[in-house]
């Protein structure tokens, strides 16, 4: 019981802290959203408009504490307020329209990256000594060190513009109406290829090297040698004995990565004009759109916490040792 309380306690404290930081951070920024908005209308909006905008946005000059209490109360009721850069659209709506794209793009490519990286890691540890196996970690290490917006821009320029193989922007051809038919779905996939390749290319290395190291450690474990001695097939030995165990230390990393899917693709989304949350977050920051910023931060924080929680459960499935209350009697 004590344990449960501790864990839930930690969860609540984390959420509270995340929420509070969300509240404080934007307010530390100089200026206010109404002023920022004027910039968007560079020279086209009268200075008087500032006051009108402040009124519109309900920017209060109330004491911070009062604002904070109000903010917490609203959150509890699931209200994140109205976005300022998309005024008067509610923050929830803004996130709602962009989140699926991010989850789709960054989520899928993270998963691809994890899967491919892990498989290549397994390969490069299993075939240690072959040139490909030794080249892979080095090559991907360099890939991982490239700024990913740079890769994105190059890909966009070469494959999108010069060669014209891929679209230059958006998540689907705008002439199509979103629906669950193959034409649309394939179009979405087509649009996501370049951004996804960017994410996969630049994040592959970490998984590969991590998995490779774990694998090599695991391959030295007695139970793997024992498995070999038992005359198991290579496949079973590699996947069920070595890889299955080697993957365990990476699981927490996967959780963090999945949690950060929401924010991770920020620059990629911007370069490819992909309508995801990352871009919204940048807009929010640039426009000092507190409510939107807070909303997105909250989503990310919750995503990370949830991913961690889910992984704890998953971990118990993967590693019987973590299942303390097992069959043992």
């Amino acid at each position, binding site marked *: 019981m004590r344990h449960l309380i501790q864990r839930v306690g930690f969860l609540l404290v984390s959420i509270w802290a995340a929420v509070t930081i969300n509240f404080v*951070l934007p307010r530390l*920024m100089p200026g206010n959203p109404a002023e920022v908005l004027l910039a968007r209308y560079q020279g086209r909006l009268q200075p008087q408009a500032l006051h009108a905008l402040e009124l519109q946005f309900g920017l209060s000059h109330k004491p911070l504490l009062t604002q904070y209490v109000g903010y917490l109360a609203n959150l509890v009721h699931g209200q994140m307020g109205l976005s300022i850069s998309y005024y008067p659209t509610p923050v929830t709506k803004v996130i709602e329209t962009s989140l699926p794209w991010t989850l789709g793009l960054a989520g899928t490519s993270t998963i691809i990256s994890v899967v491919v990286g892990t498989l290549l890691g397994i390969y490069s540890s299993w075939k240690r000594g072959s040139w490909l196996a030794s080249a892979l970690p080095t090559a991907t290490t360099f890939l991982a060190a490239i700024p990913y917006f740079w890769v994105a821009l*190059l890909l966009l320029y070469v494959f999108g513009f010069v060669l014209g193989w891929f679209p230059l922007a958006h998540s689907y051809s705008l002439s199509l109406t979103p629906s669950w038919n193959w034409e649309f779905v394939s179009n979405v996939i087509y649009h996501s290829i370049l951004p996804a390749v960017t994410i996969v290319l630049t994040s592959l290395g970490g998984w590969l090297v991590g998995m490779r190291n774990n694998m090599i450690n695991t391959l030295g474990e007695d139970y793997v040698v024992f498995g070999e001695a038992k005359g198991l097939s290579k496949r079973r030995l590699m996947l069920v004995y070595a890889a299955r165990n080697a993957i365990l230390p990476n699981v927490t990393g996967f959780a963090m990565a999945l949690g950060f899917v929401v924010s991770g693709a920020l620059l990629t989304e911007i370069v490819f004009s992909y309508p995801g949350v990352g871009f919204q977050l940048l807009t929010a*920051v640039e426009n000092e759109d507190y409510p939107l910023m807070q909303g997105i*931060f909250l989503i990310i924080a919750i995503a990370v916490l949830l991913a961690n929680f889910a992984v704890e459960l998953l971990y118990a499935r993967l590693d019987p040792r973590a299942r303390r209350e097992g069959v043992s009697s």
Partner: protein
Amino acid sequence: MIATTSPDGPSIRRGSKISTITHSLGRFFSDPKARVGGVIFAVFILMAIFAPWLIRYNPQSTQFAPWQSPNANHWLGTTGTGQDVYSQIVWGSRATLAIGIGAGFVSTFIAIVIGMFGGFLGGWIDNILATFTNIVLVIPGLPLLIVITAYAKNAGSFTIALIIGLTGWAWGARVLRSQVMSIGGRDFVTAARLSGASSWRIVMVEILPNMMALVAANLIYGSLYAILAETGLEFLGLGNVSQITWGTMLYWADAGQALLNGAWWWFVPPGLAIALVGGSFGLLNFAVDQYTNPRLRGKH
């Protein structure tokens, strides 16, 4: 390569301190990956140190004809505003490396303080520090950086390094903490305590040396992360774009539509330079891994 297994991980030959160090360095660099990484890194460090002698023109000066492709006068061509790209690359290595390594040190230092003492002292201090670490971990890095950099107006390289360092320590702290907890539970620590050593002494003298490899990895990885984060921030225009770094070069190249203008020589070199430095960090980290974990060492 030679595989000498020792049950205790990093092994240090006996002899004087100096020869111990040269020997372990020698062993470290006997790994080809470490060698390649070390050489690339050294080249860039030297470039940064000797930048004032290596540049050919004032990197800020806009005196040349814009959009020149690489030629004898301008080895890497000129930018859209008529600056010499080669000189910018050389000059930019200073700030970029300073920020990267500086931030690496800052985050490693914080990670050591928070992770090690939390892990060693345990109790409520640890609870608080660990919770704090986990919270910082939950907050997304790049967006947080964006917000803070926006706050720190006109951020110069020092500020950026500090900010990246201040926000990027959590993962390291977590790793160090768990390592400290595992080392702290070993008998040799208990033995040290039995012989009357203070907590401070135990952490600094008994535990820290055993974590050097981890600390080194943390430093290397932290620096790599810092360079990438810095470039990202500057690319978004959140740094001081009048300063010359590889990040701001990319920013200007992008703002000037270098690629559309066909000026690949403006856009490609800064990215490649980052990739090379980052890659060398990656290789060094790799080598540290192998150095500390005999199992990772190559087969013949």
